[in-house]
């Protein structure tokens, strides 16, 4: 199902949570809403779910206006941040809830519900745990129950609010792959909210980056990382060294650092250089290496320029030995934005 967000606005008190947000989500897409806390990403997700109602604008499902439709009428599957499992119901009862509440001919018979529950437990690899209570499960298992409960109603769209936020790093990684697998198996349009850029870049087909209630950029993981369209995106997605400086005559300079800045007006500007975009270069500027440490296959080098700017440089382990004492380096690539 395609989802269109048209100029959606939402204010909480005097604080604007969403500011004229437009967004198109394609059928079967896996989209990440990425942003810092307070950026409006959860509000946007809840507006799509029908758990929050916008002050202005429209939400369309397959071209039909559902802006003020109830959550139930939208047939969305929603996975809550803390899962919101029903504590007093077994796992099987939790998953069956959305089918149990149906009335009349819509309600599948008992055997059919049981079959669906089994199928879903199998999908999320929780076979045999149907009789347990949520309190008897690990965090990762609870997350899977929440996911299968949301899928039980065969939702037209699956919405997840910080689905991995409450989990530790290893479980988080395996569940990420799990979500991708479930998405690919069911083909359901999926939107998830996260503040973790690594999660968004790894999992999503496209990433929408929100800041202060606005969408800063939307694109594939490659696009937002390699071609950030705003300074905020550049600073938020991926690591970057940040330099405050001046542009004049198409060239950015901040102390010893000089970068091409074609097309930018003269004046104050900010430049971002990714750690792996610095390279040793005899024609470059001088820096003194303070510390180098191994990070997996790479070496992270902390250096300082003669005018006191601190740099973080990322180099391959093979190259690491050359980063010692005083070096000369240059930026292979940089992103410069007018302030």
């Amino acid at each position, binding site marked *: 199902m395609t989802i269109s967000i048209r100029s959606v606005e939402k204010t909480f008190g005097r604080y604007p949570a969403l500011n004229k947000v437009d967004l198109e989500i394609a059928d079967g897409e896996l989209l990440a809403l990425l942003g810092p806390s307070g950026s409006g990403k959860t509000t946007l997700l809840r507006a799509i*779910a029908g758990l929050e109602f916008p002050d202005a604008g429209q939400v369309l499902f397959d071209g039909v206006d559902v802006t003020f439709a109830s959550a139930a009428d*939208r047939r969305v599957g*929603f996975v809550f941040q803390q899962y*919101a499992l029903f504590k007093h119901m077994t796992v099987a009862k939790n998953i069956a809830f959305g089918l149990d509440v149906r009335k009349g001919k819509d309600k599948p018979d008992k055997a059919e519900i049981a079959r669906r529950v089994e199928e879903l437990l199998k999908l999320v690899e929780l076979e045999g745990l149907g009789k347990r209570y949520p309190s008897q499960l690990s965090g990762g298992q609870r997350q899977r129950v929440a996911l299968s*409960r949301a899928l*039980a109603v065969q939702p037209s769209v699956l919405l997840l609010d910080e689905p991995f936020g409450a989990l530790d790093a290893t479980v988080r990684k395996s569940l990420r792959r799990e979500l991708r697998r479930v998405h690919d198996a069911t083909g359901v349009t999926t939107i998830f909210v996260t503040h973790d850029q690594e999660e968004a870049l790894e999992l999503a087909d496209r990433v929408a980056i929100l800041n202060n209630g606005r969408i800063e950029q939307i694109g594939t993981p490659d696009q937002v990382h390699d071609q950030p369209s705003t300074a905020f995106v550049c600073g938020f997605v991926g690591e970057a060294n940040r330099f405050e400086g001046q542009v004049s005559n198409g060239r950015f300079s901040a102390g010893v650092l000089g970068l091409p800045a074609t097309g930018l007006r003269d004046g104050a500007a900010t430049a971002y250089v990714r750690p792996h975009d610095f390279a040793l270069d005899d024609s470059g500027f001088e820096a003194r290496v303070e510390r180098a440490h191994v990070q997996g296959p790479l070496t992270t080098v902390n250096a300082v320029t003669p005018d006191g700017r601190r740099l973080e440089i990322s180099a391959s382990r093979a190259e690491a030995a050359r980063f010692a004492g005083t070096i000369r380096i240059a930026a292979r690539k940089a992103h410069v934005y007018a302030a």
Partner: protein
Amino acid sequence: MAAASHRRATDDPAWAKALVIGIVLAFLALVLVLPLAAVFVEALRKGLDAAVAAVRAPDALAAVRLTLITAAIAVPFNAAFGLCAAWAIAKHDFKGKALLITLIDLPFSVSPVVAGLIYVLIFGLQGWFGDWLVERDLKIIFALPGIVLATVFVTFPFVARELIPLMQEQGTSEEEAAVSMGAGGLYTFWRVTAPNVRWGLMYGVLLCNARAMGEFGAVSVVSGHIRGLTNTMPLHVEILYNEYDFVGAFAVAALLCLLAVVTLILKTALEVAQPHVRGRGGH
């Protein structure tokens, strides 16, 4: 020095502990235990038979019946109100929420005597509806409805103030999950919310009931003290006491003490079994 150095930084010296515990136990014994003991001793001063006879006197039994009827109306009423108010306040956002909670708590800061007075001013002979009621031969003051109204007023906040913070703590995501899967309001309430708040509800009902059965000041103003008709148990205690029938007064009082003790036992059991359900400062 060796002994002292084993003491954790947050521990107090043994002598200080003993002193504090000693003072506390002595104070509580004097203020709380002694009166409780006095009731039973005075009730049994002329033997168990005399005490039992006093409780089984027709007027005493009528008082017990009236007290039970009053609580049987007032407590469910306030429980239903509490659930309604908690659903509106804890599960939804709106302006003026703090003010509404304060208004619901208001009866706790009104003197019981004033609580009785307000209904006399409205429904009494010279009250707003006095003539209207007389014409239709209806009686509210000096009758059961007045006693129930006064009791509802003084026990009004008990259930609501127990449920509102509990339901606020539990948040709204379980209800949102149920609604997003197609559940209606009542279904969500019974299947999702009610199981989560039943212990808190019981706690509130327990305290509400204790106060409803024991209320004196407010009921005293509206009851008219008609023996065998509009006398609740606490009022009956007063009448017997003022007539110098001390054994009778303390025998009925002992019955009320048992109610208090049972309430405290159930309350403690609830707190032990359901640690997240705590008293939120009852009255």
